[in-house]
């Protein structure tokens, strides 16, 4: 591990912004802290950068305890959300800023600024005033400025959020290519799940100052450890369910080999084997939620376990078509209260009666209900 954060905590008054945070970064890895606003991801980044001092916990970098080090001693490159370009300096002087702090000879500064600007495709812009640049160009100058000091760790605080959608997607690819080419270890902060997946080797999902789950994008998407993570990773249907009550005194384990949950309309679905643990943890009679991604549901005429409903909306989304199906008597938490299905093929139009169910091999995720007693 090149960077190790152990039990870092930061409070602001009564608010615990970062709560016993543990995080490790491997050399050359691109890791993203992902979470909704207020989850503590920016504070976590600022703790690592040295702008905040943890109330508890340690931060180690290359096996040295840097917890008490000032930002300038740490020497991590940082790209800020609003770029934080110095308005009184031109492009060249902005990029040269860190090199001048390091008292490098003029000749070296000139060549390294040029190199950094070439990397972000801005060579020739040296004499421009930074205010005269477009948002995308400013973002690249900010990146060049952070790269010019050849940081051992690059910290990026939502650097793409001020760009328009098309530019953001393009810059994402360029950023990842550049970081990988330079073999820089990078820690990125965003609230945009798509951005996190696009950029990162690993993603750490944060909520309430803690990392709830860390893993590759695929791991997070396919095996979320809690409802929050699953919901944050993309569209998902949330069905309130309960474990069917059997005979009195029956232990969960003796309910049979087939774990089944009952939807709110009385229909019972069988869970895949990987949900056995979650199923066993659920107490009989106590509610839970079953999370199913739209692409794990399908139109099925064959199954008697299928839900019967009517297509209310059909939206074309390129590779997928998104359907909203209203099922009578079925509760769906959040959103429209309708079941969402995504399918690669163009299926039934609005107004058609359909039967829907999990496709073969579908991933269903069972979690305890957030509200007890449901």
């Amino acid at each position: 591990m090149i960077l190790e954060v152990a039990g870092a905590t930061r409070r602001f008054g009564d608010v615990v912004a970062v709560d016993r945070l543990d995080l490790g970064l491997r050399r050359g890895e691109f890791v993203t802290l992902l979470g909704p606003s207020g989850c503590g991801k920016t504070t976590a980044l600022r703790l690592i950068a040295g702008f905040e001092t943890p109330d508890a916990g340690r931060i180690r970098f290359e096996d040295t305890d840097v917890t008490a080090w000032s930002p300038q001693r740490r020497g991590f490159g940082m790209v800020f959300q609003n770029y934080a370009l110095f308005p009184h300096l031109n492009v060249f002087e902005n990029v040269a800023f860190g090199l001048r702090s390091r008292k490098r000879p003029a000749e070296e500064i000139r060549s390294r600024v040029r190199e950094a600007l070439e990397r972000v495709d801005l060579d020739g812009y040296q004499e421009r005033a930074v205010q005269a640049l477009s948002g995308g160009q400013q973002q690249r100058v900010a990146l060049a400025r952070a790269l010019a000091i050849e940081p051992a760790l690059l910290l990026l605080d939502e650097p793409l959020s001020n760009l328009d959608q098309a530019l953001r997607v393009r810059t994402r690819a360029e950023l990842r290519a550049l970081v990988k080419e330079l073999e820089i270890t990078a820690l990125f902060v965003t609230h945009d799940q798509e951005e996190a997946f696009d950029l990162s080797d690993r993603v750490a999902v944060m909520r309430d100052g803690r990392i709830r789950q860390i893993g590759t994008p695929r791991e997070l998407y396919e095996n979320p450890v809690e409802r929050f993570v699953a919901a944050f990773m993309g569209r998902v249907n949330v069905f309130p369910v309960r474990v069917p009550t059997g005979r009195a005194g029956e232990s969960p384990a003796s309910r049979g080999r087939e774990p089944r949950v009952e939807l709110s309309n009385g229909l019972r679905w069988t869970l895949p084997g990987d949900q056995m643990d979650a199923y066993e943890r659920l107490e009989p009679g106590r509610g839970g939620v079953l999370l199913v991604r739209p692409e794990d549901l399908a139109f099925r005429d064959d199954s008697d376990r299928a839900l019967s409903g009517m297509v209310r909306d059909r939206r074309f989304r390129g590779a997928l078509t998104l359907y909203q199906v209203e099922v009578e008597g079925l509760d769906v938490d959040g959103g429209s209260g309708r079941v969402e299905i995504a399918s690669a093929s163009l299926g039934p139009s609005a107004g058609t009666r359909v039967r829907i169910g999990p496709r073969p091999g579908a991933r269903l995720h069972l979690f305890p209900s957030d509200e007890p007693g449901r």
Partner: protein
Amino acid sequence: MSRAWLVGGVFALLVWLVLYPHLFVLGDSVWIDGALSLDGYRRFFTTPAELEALWGSVWISVGSVILSALMGIPLAFLFTRFDFPGRTIFGALAALPVLLPPLVGVIAFMFLYGESGIFTRSAQAALGLERPPWRLVGGWAILLVHAYSMYVYFYLFTAAGLARLDASAAEAAESLGAGRWRTLTRVTLPMLAPSFLAASLLVFMTSMASFSAPYIFGGGFRVLTTQIFASKVSGQVTMAMVETVVLATVSLLFLWILSRFQRGREFAAVGKGVAAARTEIRSTWARVLIPVVGIGAVLVLLLPHLTLVLVSFVPEGAWTIQILPTRYDLDNYRGLFSNPQLWVPIWNSLQMATIATAANLVFCFLIAYLLVRGRFRGKGALLTLTMLPWALPGTVIAVALAVTFSANQPWFGRWVLVGSFWILPLAYFIRNIPLVAQAAIASFRQYDPVLEEASQSLGAGWTETMRRVAVPLVLPGLAVGGLLAWVAALGEFVSSILLYTHRSRPISIEILSQLRAFDFGAAAALGVVLAALMTLAFALGGRFVRGGVATGPPRG
């Protein structure tokens, strides 16, 4: 924050210079002949003359607020709401007196409307009177002079308020069926209330502290500032201290009351807001009347200053009993360069103002940094100490310095500075702390603190970040504050008259002594020099700010 030494140092200096001297004033007001006694206060509150001075200060201040408002507010409406030829230039000219030191304004007024002033003698001649139709002395004279110079605050604040005002509120009122008068009284004026209050506060505090006008036009009329001066000069130490305490208390009391009014009366425009369009004047009579009234009013207001320029060309003895001086030449201006009596004070003022301002720039930069960026306990106390000299009349500050720095007790932070060159720069420095600090605070607030973090993340330490990021970004705003401070120090009179020594006398004191010697021309020339230096400073300052980054439009 690990920069505890900085916080401690700034606090210590402020306490020493801003708070500590006033404790000596307080002490000396109750310490009579080696014993604690309230005799001084008893005498103050039983002597009719003293109570007269207290009452005089208060009613002159209230009256000045009312008169200035009556002059400044309509003028601001006229120049911001209507479009007519000459609007821009005369609108700017109307704000000009704000640049002039009070003493210069006062003597300009005297040359025009005084007993032997040009206007007075013209009226006398026109009416065929044997004596001047009026003598410009007493409370009403002071009031008039105050209104003449302090309308500017109402004018500027109202104009700024009108510019900020969301015109859609007035449009909404009109669309709801309100007539013009109703819209004005129910929507526009209430929305301007914060501007009026701010201007009232400024005028009130300025007239409470005013010294030049009562000193020159007061005659037998007493106010606290002149009373303090008289007591001090005649050696009634205890009484001077008691009067100083009373003046300081009354000033702080009114400041407290007025700022309580101000709280919660800021109207932020909801939504984006639309700037008001200037009304083009349609009816024929108004098309003539409005510019005539507007431009006419400005000319009348500027007439004293034009008189000053005229008188500065009058050689000694060429203006005795005539309406207008008989001869004009450049002798007075030549004298400024050849006569040490005249150029030494100019040189003194330049030196002292520059030293004081340089210290203000450094110190107030640090204060502002701590107030805006710092995280420490006692920020409120720091702000209060910083702004305290603004609330205290110059007379109070000067008396406090005179008492504190007239003894040599290094262990108590006292050295003999009275009678030395350094006492005046010190007084100017203290009086200008609030002004420069406010400019620096505004500048610090203008840029994102993340820039300082960016600098640190690139490897710059605190001092390097200050030097390479904070100073260049704060400088344009700070420089304007410094310029205002420099200009104020250059023409400072109120504290100077209590603290100056003959060798290091400033321009204002020399103006006074030339007046006493009836060399009006030389006094006027010195006044013009002051005004010219100020105009020059602002011309340079304006260019500097425009070239700066804080206000400059994006280039390219």
